[in-house]
């Protein structure tokens, strides 16, 4: 067991290191901006004093390395800075304090919860569905069902998310008004109502993710079906369903867990477009809005959160596949 802990700790350290380097990349990229934010917000006719005052308040007059360390230190304590767009600059010049609403953390927190809710609903539908469909496709491989599933999943993988989203809106919201096409979610909403408003974006994401997961599940199981012990089970006279569920599935678990974690990581990018289509108040929409108005601290923070989630899920996939595979657990 000792070697497992060591490998897991190694991976964990590597993940943290990656996250650290990624934060440097994000910070450096943002600092490539021409001029600085103080000039941008005040425009051409700003006086030198006003620009300097804002620079001082935002800490823009310090050297980059110091600013990076301060940003990182604050971020680790949960303070992601002040949103430029929300900050009231009249306050800045006077007192140097910022109202609670303007801080990036207070804006991101509720939206992050919304995004996690959307991802959770999607995973709850997509994971069981894709596993079932993947096993069925492996069981009835090369049948009409398998070929149909192959074409359908390939199509839904290759379509842009907004195409699938608008098709679902067309059929489930406009032609048959079953579900709301806009997800206006607010605090204090009941769970049922919230679920109803989240269902359409979640279904869109499900279509994309299910296709990926199902293809990978099918491939993982078919790969195993070529092994001798499966041949043996079949020659014993077991039913095809039993061969797959009792003999192939336990050994296919490692790649399948890997696939699930990787697809949840993929969900992170998909969420951006889908949230914009459905005006879902999540972190992806906030990110796109901040990109459009160049709200640097917000962009930085969203980017860091997305990257952290992505790295974390990839790490999870890595660790789970080591833990679930004895051959990796005891490397020679």
């Amino acid at each position, binding site marked *: 067991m000792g070697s497992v802990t060591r490998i897991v700790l190694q991976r964990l350290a590597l993940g943290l290191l990656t996250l650290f*380097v990624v934060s440097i990349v994000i910070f450096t990229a*943002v600092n490539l901006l021409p001029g600085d934010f103080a000039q941008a917000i005040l425009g051409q006719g700003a006086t030198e004093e006003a620009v300097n005052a804002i620079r001082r308040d935002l800490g823009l007059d310090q050297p980059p390395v110091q600013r990076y360390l301060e940003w990182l230190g604050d971020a680790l304590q949960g303070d992601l800075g002040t949103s430029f767009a929300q900050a009231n600059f009249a306050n800045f010049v006077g007192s140097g304090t910022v109202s609670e609403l303007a801080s990036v953390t207070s804006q991101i927190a509720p939206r992050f919860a919304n995004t996690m809710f959307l991802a959770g609903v999607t995973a709850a539908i997509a994971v069981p569905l894709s596993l079932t469909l993947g096993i069925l496709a492996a069981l009835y491989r090369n049948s*009409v069902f398998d070929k149909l599933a192959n074409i359908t999943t390939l199509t839904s993988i290759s379509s842009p998310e907004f195409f699938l989203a608008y098709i679902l809106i067309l059929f489930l919201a406009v032609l048959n008004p079953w579900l709301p096409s806009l997800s206006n979610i607010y605090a204090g909403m009941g769970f049922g109502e919230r679920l109803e408003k989240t269902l359409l974006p979640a279904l869109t994401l499900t279509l994309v993710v299910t296709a990926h997961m199902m293809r990978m599940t099918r491939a993982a199981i078919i790969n195993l079906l070529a092994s001798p012990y499966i041949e043996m089970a079949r020659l014993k006279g077991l039913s095809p369903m039993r061969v797959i569920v009792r003999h192939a599935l336990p050994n296919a678990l490692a790649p399948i867990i890997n696939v699930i974690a990787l697809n949840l990581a993929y969900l992170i*990018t998909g969420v951006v477009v889908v949230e914009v289509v459905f005006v879902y108040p999540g972190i992806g929409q906030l990110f796109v809005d901040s*990109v459009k108005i160049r709200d640097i601290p917000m*962009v930085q923070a969203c980017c860091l959160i997305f990257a952290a989630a992505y790295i974390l899920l990839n790490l999870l996939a890595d660790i789970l596949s080591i833990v679930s595979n004895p051959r990796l657990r005891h490397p020679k």
Partner: protein
Amino acid sequence: MTLLWIIGGIVALVALGWVFRAAGRTTGNATFRDMDLSTAFGYAVALVAVVAGIYTYFLVETAVFFRWAVQGFIIAAVAAFLFRLLGRHVGPDSTRKLFRAMPLTASFGILTILIYAILAIFAGLIAPHGQAEVFGTVNVLPGGDPAVGGDPAFPLGTDQIGRDLLSRLIYGAQNTVGIAFATTLLAFLLGGSMGFLAATLGGWLDNLLSRIVDVLMAIPSLIFALLLMTIASAWAGSHKELLTVYMVIIIAVIDSTRVYRLARAVGSNIVVMDYIEAAKLRGEGLGYLIFKEILPNATAPLLAEFGLRFCFVFLTIASLSFLGVGIQPPLADWGTMVRDLSQFINFAAFSPLTAALPLMAAGAIALLTVAVNFVVDWMLHKSSGLKE
């Protein structure tokens, strides 16, 4: 209540499957004797789906979109079949041989890619109007029927500021596909040369490049692209056309990391071969090694990767444009069109053709990626020799 209906439906389908199998068994056929109940259930589902489809197609008056989808599918299948037939009998021996063992999906893919290429190259000749030409009549409805707000001069209508939508759709092929193609080429040039260099030279260069690529790949590509586009938009300032150029460079760099990985992996498998050793002993230079020895042996995997990479780049560019930070107006582009026209989807009940406008632009994107994927799928299947 809904749950009750679903459970009832499944039970009814299982019963139908059981009856179907029992009826089959009376004929004494061995297929029915060995059939699982789950397989019979599958046949029952398929039967019900086909009956429901036929019923909707012929008897439901309002199912316009369903009829269009079915017609589109049939036309696509017939076109693909005819194209394959043509390929089997016309042209040199090598292509005829290729067409003989081709699945219908692949021939559909090749046909679609050809049509897109023709549209993109000759957009200026095919489109009835210019892409940025503004006419006096705004918001003309599609269909070309003057009685309901159409205009025969604009078959698909005009947008909010009076530009012909059909022309913009056609020019979209030139801009969106052209820019995506250029970006992919750039990514391959960059990633491919770096990857081969790392594979041939090895040592510190290999280590350095690989670590940089590792870090860049740890950030999700769309997120990274959005971050860099924020900075690019500040650099471009009021020169919106520069932003498109920056986008090409940004996406090319981000995607070149994926190309680098593949090129390096393929390249390092090749550099250990004896013929490379021989070339090195002959005293050949680095350029000769890469272009004359490694590249010809790495074409097949790189070509398949090119197709897949093109799809990713194409979808990324479309997504960025859809989000409003990609290809900038006045260039016509499908992602932006989807966003601008998306409100029309609410008119589906009154004017299906109007509602189909945003879907046409989005569908144009989807169709090309599907086509490329079909072709790549077939190529990979053919070259790997998988018969499962």
